[in-house]
C-alpha cells in the first residue's frame, strides 16, 4: 500500500470509551452479513444441488441439530477474520479503520495477531475491554488501534472495488437479486401467457363508464344509500383536507414539546421531550393503513370518519417529528436575544422560533397533504371510507368500465391536488 506518506496527516481520532456501543453494533453488522451469506449459500445449495422443494425451504430453514452451533460459530469466525484482514463493511459503515499504533497501516502479522488475540480478549465476557474500553487487550498486544475516521475530506484511499467492503457490497447485492429471483419465483413468461386476461381489462377500462358520475349508482349501496362517483370524490377530498388541517394544527403545538432546545435541559424538560418523541415514533411507525383497520373496527367499517381518524393520527405523529427536528435545528441566537430582552418561553417561541421554522413547516405540511390525498383514495380497502369503496366494489363485480371511470377521477384528484400544493410550495420557498 502506498498511502504510508498520508499516514502522517491522518487525524488520530482514537475510538472513545463511550463508543463501545458503536463498536459492538459495527461488529454485529458484520456478523449479520455473514449470517445472511450463510443463509444464501445454504439456500442455493438446496435449490441447485439437493433440490429440496423451494416452497418449503425458505420458511423452514432446516438444519441438523449440530448445524446451528456450527453456523453461529462459523459466521462469528468469518466476521472476526474479515474485520481484521481488511476493512469490512461493518467497519466501513461505522467509519472505523484498524491502524498500527505507530501511525502506519498494520502489517499482515499484526492483523493475524489481532484476530487471534480477539478470541482471548472478547469471548471471556469482554474481559479485554474492562480495564480500558478505548484500547482493549487485543489492540494493545497487537500494537494496533481502531480509529474513527472523520466523515469529511478523506485522505487518499483505495478504490471501492479493490477493498474488502466494496467487493462485499457487490456480492451482497448480487446474492440478494439471485435469492429474490428464486423466492419470488420471477417468471416473465406469465406476462405473455396471460396476455388475454390483461388486455381485456385494459380495453374495458379504456372505455370508462361515466353514466354514474353525477347520478347515484343504484348498483352500489353503502348503508342503504346509493352514491355517485362525484359524491365519493367530494368525501375523499374532504378526508384529505380535514386530516391534514387537524393533523398539522395538533402537531404544531406538540412539536415544541418534542424539541430539546425549547424544553430546556432540566429533568422535567427531558422527560417531556422523551415522552413526546417516543409517542411520535411509536404512532408514526404504525402505518396509516393499520390505524384505519383499528378505527374501522372502533367507529364503523367503511365510514369516512375511520379514515379521517387514521390519517389524522398518522399525520400528527409524522409532522410532529419533522416539525420538532426543524425546531431543534434553529439558530439559537435570536432565542438568546428575545430571552435577554425579558421574553417568556412562549414569547421566545412566538418571536424567535416560529419565524425561523415557518417556511419548512409549510413545506412539510404540503408534502403531507400530498400523501394524505393519495392515501385517502385507497384507504377504503381496509374500511376507511372514501372513493376507494366504489373502486373496490366495481372491481369485485368485474365491472371494468366503471373501474376505469373511478380510476380516471382518482388520477384527476391526485393531479389537481399535486398541482395546487406545488404552486403553494413555490410561493413559500
Amino acid at each position: 500500500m502506498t498511502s504510508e506518506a498520508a499516514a502522517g496527516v491522518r487525524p488520530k481520532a482514537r475510538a472513545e470509551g463511550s463508543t463501545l456501543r458503536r463498536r459492538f453494533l459495527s461488529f454485529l453488522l458484520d456478523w449479520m452479513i455473514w449470517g445472511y451469506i450463510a443463509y444464501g449459500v445454504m439456500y442455493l445449495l438446496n435449490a441447485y444441488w439437493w433440490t429440496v422443494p423451494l416452497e418449503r425451504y425458505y420458511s423452514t430453514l432446516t438444519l441438523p441439530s449440530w448445524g446451528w452451533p456450527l453456523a453461529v460459530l462459523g459466521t462469528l469466525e468469518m466476521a472476526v477474520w474479515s474485520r481484521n484482514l481488511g476493512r469490512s463493511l461493518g467497519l466501513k459503515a461505522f467509519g472505523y479503520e484498524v491502524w498500527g499504533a505507530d501511525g502506519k497501516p498494520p502489517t499482515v502479522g499484526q492483523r493475524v495477531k489481532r484476530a487471534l488475540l480477539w478470541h482471548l480478549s472478547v469471548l471471556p465476557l469482554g474481559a479485554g475491554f474492562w480495564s480500558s474500553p478505548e484500547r482493549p487487550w487485543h489492540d494493545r498486544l497487537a500494537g494496533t488501534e481502531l480509529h474513527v475516521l472523520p466523515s469529511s475530506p478523506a485522505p487518499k484511499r483505495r478504490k471501492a472495488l479493490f477493498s474488502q467492503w466494496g467487493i462485499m457490497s457487490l456480492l451482497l447485492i448480487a446474492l440478494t437479486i439471485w435469492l429474490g429471483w428464486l423466492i419470488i419465483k420471477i417468471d416473465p413468461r406469465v406476462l405473455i401467457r396471460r396476455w388475454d386476461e390483461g388486455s381485456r381489462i385494459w380495453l374495458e377500462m379504456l372505455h370508462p363508464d361515466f353514466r354514474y358520475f353525477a347520478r347515484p349508482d343504484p348498483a352500489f349501496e353503502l348503508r342503504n344509500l346509493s352514491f355517485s362517483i362525484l359524491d365519493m370524490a367530494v368525501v375523499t377530498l374532504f378526508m384529505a383536507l380535514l386530516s391534514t388541517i387537524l393533523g398539522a394544527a395538533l402537531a404544531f403545538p406538540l412539536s415544541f414539546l418534542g424539541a430539546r432546545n425549547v424544553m430546556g435541559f432540566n429533568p422535567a424538560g427531558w422527560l417531556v421531550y422523551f415522552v413526546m418523541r417516543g409517542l411520535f415514533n411509536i404512532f408514526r411507525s404504525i402505518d396509516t393503513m393499520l390505524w384505519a383497520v383499528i378505527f374501522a373496527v372502533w367507529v364503523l367499517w367503511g365510514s369516512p370518519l375511520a379514515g379521517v381518524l387514521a390519517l389524522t393520527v398518522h399525520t400528527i405523529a409524522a409532522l410532529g417529528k419533522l416539525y420538532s427536528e426543524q425546531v431543534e435545528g434553529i439558530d439559537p441566537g435570536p432565542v438568546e436575544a428575545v430571552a435577554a430582552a425579558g421574553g417568556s418561553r412562549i414569547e421566545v417561541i412566538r418571536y424567535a422560533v416560529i419565524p425561523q421554522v415557518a417556511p419548512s413547516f409549510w413545506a412539510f405540511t404540503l408534502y403531507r397533504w400530498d400523501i394524505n390525498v393519495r392515501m385517502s383514495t385507497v384507504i377504503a380497502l381496509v374500511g376507511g371510507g372514501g372513493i376507494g369503496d366504489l373502486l373496490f366494489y366495481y372491481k369485485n363485480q368485474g365491472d371494468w368500465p366503471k373501474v376505469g371511470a373511478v380510476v380516471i377521477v382518482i388520477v384527476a384528484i391526485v393531479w389537481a391536488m399535486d398541482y395546487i400544493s406545488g404552486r403553494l410550495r413555490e410561493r413559500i420557498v
Partner: protein
Amino acid sequence: MAEPYLVVEHLTKVYERGQVLALKDVSFTVEKGEFLVVIGLSGSGKSTLLRCINRLVEPTSGRIFLGGVEITRLSAREMRKMRRKIGMIFQQFNLIKRATVMTNVLTGRLGYNPTWRTLLGLFPKEDRELALKNLERVGLSDKAYVRADELSGGQQQRVGIARALMQEPELLLADEPVSALDPATSHSVMQYLEQMNREDGVTVLASLHFLSLARRYGTRIIALKEGRLVFDGPPEAIDDAKFKEIYGEEAEQVEVR
C-alpha cells in the same frame, strides 16, 4: 460609601457538557456610568461572564448584585422582570432575520407588555413611536419595514442597538459587538455605545477583541485569561508586559483605526 452598581463575587461557571471550567472565582465591581471593557483571547470566558450577569447562563457558584439586588437568587419570573433593565447586543446581531426591522426593534418591549398582547403582535402606539424614534437615532428610520436580513452587518448591529434602547436599559451588555464588522463600521457602532453611555447614563459592559478599541472606548478594562481575572484597571495601565501576560508571548498588538 454606597454599594457599587454591579458587584460580581467569586463567580465560577463550569459547563456540564465537556466539564469546561469557563470562569474561575471572578470578582469585580462596576460603578454606575462606567464603560467597562472585557478583553481576553477567544475561549477566555468573556461571553460566559456577560451571560452570567443576565443569567442567560446559570452561574455554578458565586453571587452577582445589581443595584443592590442579588440577581443570582431571583426566581425565573423575577429575573425576566430584571432583564428589562439589562439590554444586550451580540456579535452575530441575533436578529429575527425573516421579520421586519420594526418587529425586531419591538421585541425590546416584550418585557413591558402583557403576554396576550405580544403574542398577537399588538404593541401599544407609544411603543411603535418609541421604536421609530430609536431607529431614527441609529440612522435607520427609512428601513423600518425592510426585512432584517436585507441589511448590511453594520445596519443589523444598529438594529440590535435600537432593540436594546427600547428596553430603556440601565445596563448594557455588549458581547463582541463589532467583531463581525469592518474597522470603519466598528467605530460607528462603538460611537453609538459611547453615546448611550455618556448621554443616557447607561452603564456599559462590552467585551472587545482588540486592545486598541478597548483603550479608545473603555473607561476601565478587565482582562480574562482561561477563566481567571488577570487584570483590572485603567486603560493606560496595560503596558507591554501586561499585554503579553493577557494575550500570550507570541501576540502582536493590532491597531483598529
